[in-house]
């Protein structure tokens, strides 16, 4: 089992988490090891409560399906997600590690290009249609929505 530091999650900034993920992926020379790692993540992490796997939380791609749910607590947004495909689930978990537990403005301002740097760029391509690109858009939309809600309250 490869080590990853999830205990610090929430205390790290978004860019710190991104750097950490890049460091983890730099361990791999071979694409097969990289996918092995993703598959392991996709498998080992319970991502979303079944009650939250509703149609309204479903993002359909024609390849795989992604469920994304959000919660707003004490000024921070917490995301959970799941997918029916293991590789998609592994990447969904990376996105959750990066974005969950941050303020709306931190999420809105965050770069989403880190998947390029770890050689998973093609998974965010619109042609891949695995739901991940929509997931990133949805994460940003939630952040906008909570920010507006905060201002109005």
């Amino acid at each position: 089992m490869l080590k990853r530091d999830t205990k610090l999650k929430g205390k790290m900034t978004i860019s710190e988490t991104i750097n950490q993920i890049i460091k983890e992926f730099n361990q791999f020379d071979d694409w097969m090891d990289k996918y092995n790692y993703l598959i392991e993540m996709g498998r080992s992490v319970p991502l979303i409560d079944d009650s939250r796997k509703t149609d309204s939380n479903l993002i359909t791609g024609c390849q795989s399906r992604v469920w994304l749910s959000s919660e707003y607590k004490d000024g921070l947004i917490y995301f959970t997600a799941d997918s029916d495909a293991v590789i998609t689930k592994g990447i969904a978990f990376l996105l959750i590690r990066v974005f969950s537990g941050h303020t709306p403005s931190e999420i809105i301002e965050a770069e989403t290009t880190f998947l390029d740097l770890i050689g998973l760029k093609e998974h965010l391509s619109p042609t891949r249609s695995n739901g991940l690109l929509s997931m990133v858009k949805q994460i940003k939309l939630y952040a906008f929505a909570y920010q507006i809600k905060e201002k109005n309250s």
Partner: protein
Amino acid sequence: MSDFSASKIQSVRADFPILSRSIYGKPLVYLDNAATTQKPRSVIEAISDYYLYDNANVHRGVHYLSQQATGAFEDVRKKVASFVNAGSSNEIIFARGATEAINLAAWSYCETFLNAGDEILVSALEHHSNIVPWQVACQRKGAHLKVIPVTPEGELNMGAFAHLLGKNTKMVAVSHISNTLGTINPIAEIVEMAHHRDIPVFVDGAQGLSHGPVDVQALDCDFYAFSAHKMYGPMGIGGLFGKTKWLEKMEPYQLGGEMIDKVTFEKTTYNEIPYKFEAGTPNVADVMGLGAAIGYLEGLGWDFIKAQEADLLSYTTARLQEIEGVKIIGTASEKAAIVSFLIEGIHFFDAGTILDHLGIAVRTGNHCTQPLMDFLGISGTLRASMSFYNTRQEIDILVEGIHKVKKLFA
């Protein structure tokens, strides 16, 4: 092995420059021919030669190049007509592809002949392209779309079809070959049953023209749509065969230049078929490519193509069946070289992603046949679709790849 030697197949492969490239450092194994086939050099050269030396607008100028382009353009129409054995080249309309040909036929036929309360039959096997245009035409006209069910093997339920044919049926629209399962539908039988009640039959031939000879007069179908890019020709061109008796009565689909006879601000009269259905400047360069593709297929001959593809179908089926946990989806008795399958416990997207990294191009997903997926109770499949240029060695690489996938996700 088929009766054709390995050296013959290697020389055929050499006609397709793309087949020798590598993907992620591995030799490309291209098994997505049902999505689009690769193009031989002669097709690519026909297109570039047209633009390099022959480009002019057709049917318009008195000048030499325009006359020459018009002649070449109309020669390809004749070539297509003879390729599908149409009664007349006037029955061949050029379109962007099978999708546009279906839209043209569905809109124009339904605008002219469909009334409230009428019915159109499609099958549960259809590609979305052969469902939605008919569905929307039905909605527009207050007609009903009825569905011919399929058996668990992926064949049309012909008994149910017989019962669905009724006095209100105005059209039967079915595919020649299922893009998802490879099933070859019994078109001649369908036509005979439908014509017995004077109902026309529309055939979506997107997968039909590349695997074996098609004779629209022998089939006696009323319409047959096709795409050049699925028969070794360029993207962006295809066509529709339609019987004269329908085409002459049907309303034009698009309006503009070329399709008119006389225009005044009070009234416009339309040109004769096929021009009535070809508004605007056509895609002449790709028509040249289509002509070259037909020439290429005729040069190879159906004996070679059919023997190679039959061998690849039976070899692929047998090799996949040997793998524990692999289930072939679609086991019709008549099949083209298209094999859909699932690997137990592994999502098709995961499997396809790993196969891709091994240089293997297969299609994953619902293949634009969501109603068929719903019927089969699955969300998608992996699909290997073969061409005459594929080899048994490539199927071996696929099988090895599946074993790697199984190990990775075990």
